[in-house]
């Protein structure tokens, strides 16, 4: 867990290159600055980007380094189910996992080198040790108007946990998404926020 003198809230975002993890983390980082909080973040660039496994760290109210120690995160936000499991060691024992249940098959699976685990098995595995909010964020994003707004659905979901006001979060969503997609993303944010409250 984040602790006094170090950080107020530590969040790990896991996903696959191309899912929009950087935009998700940018919305939160920008909102933190608007909320007068210091913030540190680290992101994955370059060779690991396309289709690879990516992880972003965000530390709110932190003036030290951007990397969250092992078992340090308050929340693990996973944009893809298998990626939740891959970065589980960053989550503190009493932390929460918010996970999109829609899988993305890596080429190692489509070409038959590896198998993709059963999504239900992943979720129940996560539930053995942690509080889990699991839902199909990609479906919700489609309902909101476009599957690409899945990352904003997830940002909406995690907004329930962050020490930042909802209004500031929503404001930053609107500022950072492409202008044409503001309505879709505002809806996606609300849907994500609501489902994580259930």
């Amino acid at each position: 867990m984040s602790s006094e003198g170090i950080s107020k809230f530590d969040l790990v975002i896991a996903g696959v290159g191309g899912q929009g993890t950087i935009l998700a983390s940018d919305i939160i980082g920008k909102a933190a600055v608007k909320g007068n909080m210091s913030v540190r973040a680290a992101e994955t660039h370059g060779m690991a980007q396309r289709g690879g496994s990516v992880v972003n760290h965000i530390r709110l109210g932190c003036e030290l380094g951007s990397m969250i120690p092992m078992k340090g995160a308050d929340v693990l936000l996973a944009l893809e189910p298998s990626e939740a499991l891959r970065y589980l060691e960053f989550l503190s024992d009493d932390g929460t996992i918010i996970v999109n249940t829609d899988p993305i098959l890596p080429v190692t699976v489509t070409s038959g080198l590896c198998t993709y685990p059963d999504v239900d098995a992943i979720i129940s595995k996560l539930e053995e040790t942690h509080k889990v909010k699991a839902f199909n964020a990609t479906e919700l994003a489609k309902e909101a108007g476009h599957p690409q707004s899945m990352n904003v659905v997830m940002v909406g979901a995690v907004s329930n946990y962050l020490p930042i006001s909802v209004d500031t979060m929503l404001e930053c969503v609107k500022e950072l998404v492409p202008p044409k997609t503001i309505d879709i993303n505002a809806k996606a944010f609300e849907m994500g926020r609501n489902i994580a409250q259930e």
Partner: protein
Amino acid sequence: MSTREYMLGNVAIARGIVEGGGQVISGYPGTPSSEIIGTLAGMKERDFYVEWSVNEKVALEVAAGAAMTGVRSVVTMKHVGLNVAADPLLTLAYTGVKGSMIIIVADDPSCHSSQNEQDTRRYSQFSLIPCLDPCTPQEAKDMIPYAFEFSNKVQMPVIFRPTTRISHGKSDVELGPVNETRPAAEFVKELERWVMVPKNARVQHPHLLELQKDILNELENSPWNSLELSDGAKVGVIASGIASVYAKEAIIKQGINASFLKIGTYPVPENKIRTLMENSERIIIFEEMEPVVEEQVRIIAQETGSNVEVIGKLQGPVPRIYELNTDICSDVLADVLELERPDVPAEVAEDFDYDRCRIDLPMRPPVMCPGCSHRSTFHVMKKVYGKDAIFPSDIGCYTLGIQSGTVDTTLCMGGSITVASGMYQAGEKKPICCSIGDSTFFHTGMNGLLNAIYNKADITVTIVDNRITAMTGHQPNPGMGKLVTGEETSEVDLEALCKGLGAGFVETADPYDLKQTEEVFKRAKEYKGTSVVITEQLCVIDAKRSGIRRTPFTIDAEKCTGCRLCVNLGCPAIEFDTNTRKASINAMCTGCGVCAALCKFDAITEVKK
């Protein structure tokens, strides 16, 4: 209005260049340094010159020339790029500069996207050029205007060394004022200084050594070094650059009473080290990569006859490889001070046993994009040259062709053609077909091709030309007819260039057209001497951004026999269902049509609207 903004470390560095009044900025793209120039070029109002140069040596020389005229210049690159620029670097230390010059070299501990993890601070020691090492994006920004001033004061270039976690870290950054003065360029002839013939170099070298004292004195008391002596503490911790925030967090976490010296400059602040030494029984040193600070501390301990115990990387336990983090610092502190280890030892991270979850996770390596033309180039190359052929390759997206079996070597930028030549000259009898991207070819591949042709190497050089520098984030290059600012410029004709270098066989193929590409490669293979095949097709991401929409393809399950020929292409858009034994195409398809051309059963067709 708030002057606090949320920004990427590289954007903060770019802001620092603006605040410091940078006038000429050059560089060559390389992760994690690339966004600095990208940010500067993207600014709507610009009163500075900015360019992507064709390689780091060229970029450094452009910035050096500018600084010789008295203006403020910056050159950016990644650590391995400094090897390319090492030749001018070492002599530039002798000449110094008249204006100001900052050499930004981003290091990549842990090789997140690099072929090695060399430490640029070694080049600082080697060249006797001072170096600044930031600990946060804020400090990175603040150091740049300081570096301009300092460089001008000592008339020397300054190396600025962010690491991946600074360059690709994000933070709230407090902006500063912009320096509005712009010294005008005026070159003053001073042959003794600017012309490094032996007579002058022999004078400049002792001058450079003499200058070290001034540099040390200036840096010792700069804001980037700070010493906090703690009452009753027997332990001193020294940490430099980003390691200082990791060490600080570990000290807070463990509740340790320790004196703390944070270092941000090289040469290191010797007086502060002496003071800490006098107040400590043991000193623990944290720094990323090489034991640069530690060596200096040991030298000072020997000079002063100090009995202080020095603990760091040389004899352990601080690791000399990969990047540091809070967990590693915590563990080292716990072990050395015989405290209880935190509940999660750092090695858990590296040895994390996925089996413990009792669920096997599929590997998710980075791959070439769906529809990427490199994939089809490699497919044809392998078919024509055969499994036994040797495929030297280079640095770029196409290095991911390692999964296609067409990347046998990757040494450095431009190293594919030269390695291929060396293999041929050694007497290797197997066919040799190397691959190199357009930007890499302009970087240092051209020299290699010239050398191969001149020395009659019988090899095929494949230039995989996707019309952009894709890997590092889509920077323009001389093949595109476009500058970093978007302005039009002359577009190099690759075929004419290769012919100009003396190539007797140069042909261009469209890699989406498998048949044509195969024929070109067959002719190239037959050709005696150095043959050049250019496979030209827009990068799929760039194509999408410029509005090109192709119809996606689909697989007719009735016709699919499950032969897996299309699956073996390794395109992320093609999936194989092991239950039904049929292939299918998912939503990622970009409509390149290569799989359709491969299918022997006509099962793959364009989606009907």
